[in-house]
């Protein structure tokens, strides 16, 4: 009975005092003015390119095609794509409109997949121009969809790294083309990419 009275009056027990003391001494430093979103900026940027299948298939197929074409396309195409993608992201960020972005992204899957399927070997500048054009569309979409309140540098760093690693994944898979069975499998994979691209094209138009 007396316990209840004491509690109602708001007195502290030794246990509650000890808990308060522990909590107070464990309190971390107050970090005022931390830049908003900085702690999650890198991971958000890393996650963004792999959050959509249309982006993934296009970027992986750049690597597949580069591996199929061999040097110097194997490194030139994955260098061209992020650079032109950054230009597209720049335009998206400053609000320059690019018509038919979704159709362009879907077409990138269709055409790059078809190029792998048919083992198309155009001149190097032609391949780079094609990849660069699609990079522009992908970059613009990313730039226009960037979330607010992120750390620009860390977000962009994660974004570029994720794109680059998707290309590297494509190149690594594409290395199987040196074996006869691997070449066939690679072309089948290109057909799969083109089919996915057709689906995205259908959804973009419909």
């Amino acid at each position, binding site marked *: 009975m007396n316990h209840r009275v004491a509690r109602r009056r708001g*007195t502290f027990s030794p246990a509650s005092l000890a808990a308060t003391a522990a909590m107070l*001494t464990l309190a971390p430093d107050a970090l005022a003015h931390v830049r908003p979103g900085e702690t999650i900026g890198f991971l958000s940027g890393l996650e963004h390119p792999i959050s959509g299948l249309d982006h993934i298939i296009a970027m992986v197929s750049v690597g597949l095609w580069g591996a199929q074409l061999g040097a110097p396309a194997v490194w030139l195409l994955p260098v061209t794509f992020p*650079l032109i993608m*950054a230009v597209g992201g720049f335009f998206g*960020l400053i609000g320059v409109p690019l018509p038919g972005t979704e159709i362009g992204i879907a077409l990138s899957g269709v055409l790059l997949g078809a190029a792998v399927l048919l083992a198309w070997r155009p001149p190097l500048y032609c391949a780079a121009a094609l990849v660069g054009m699609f990079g522009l569309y992908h970059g613009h979409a990313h730039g226009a969809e960037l979330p607010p309140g992120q750390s620009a*540098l860390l977000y*962009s760093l994660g974004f570029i790294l994720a794109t*680059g690693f998707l290309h590297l994944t494509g190149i690594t898979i594409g290395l199987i083309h040196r074996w006869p069975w691997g070449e066939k499998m690679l072309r089948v994979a290109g057909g799969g990419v083109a089919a996915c691209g057709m689906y995205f094209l259908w959804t973009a138009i419909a």
Partner: protein
Amino acid sequence: MNRAVVGPACRTDSFFSDDREARKIFSMCGEKLGGRVCPRPRPEKTKVFRQSAVTAFLALLPTAASAHLTNSGLGPAYDGIYHFIFTPEQALPMAALALFAGRRGPAHARAITLLLPSCWVCACLCGIAAPPALAALLAACVVLASGALLASDVVMPPLATGAVCVLSGVLLGALYGTPTDSPAGTLAAAACVFVLLALFASVSLPLRQMPAIIAVRVAGSWTAALGLLLIGWFLHGRVS
């Protein structure tokens, strides 16, 4: 928990074996009832005051909040190192420039490891500061230019590399500023800059195999792409 009450319901017998023990504990507020010490509760105000004092004392124990400063707790030198390490705007272009200088040869690598930290620390200690409104744009331009140099692998004489080092050192130093009141932090960060440049230049200096050279140039193209995106971010902030 004080269970003792005054009056007939006093139950001190169950707690204390003798008066001496009870007096010891309740020396300030005990009273005798029939030869026994029967403690009465302390006044409520005294309890609240004591508990408030204890809470206030404990509240003073956490460390100080350090807004706008990097506080490692190990002194200004470590604070400076800590601040530099967690400033990728500084470390990234420096790494790109060091890789570029290493690709060009030992004379270029020597120029960057000596000139850039010297100019950087001079700019910091002299208090040269970039205009706050343009700091983000300047940082983005430095990232873009350093990445473009590395990606293009442009051939230039050591003198030109030296000029690039001086320019980028002053610019990066102006963007870095002085994070602490003591110059020890800046000097420690300058040592960190030197180590970073020496490490990256020594990585790219002996590269002769094509895949490794391509990897370095790809890293440069990614850095340039990052710089371009940062310029876009800056303009996006201006536009929106």
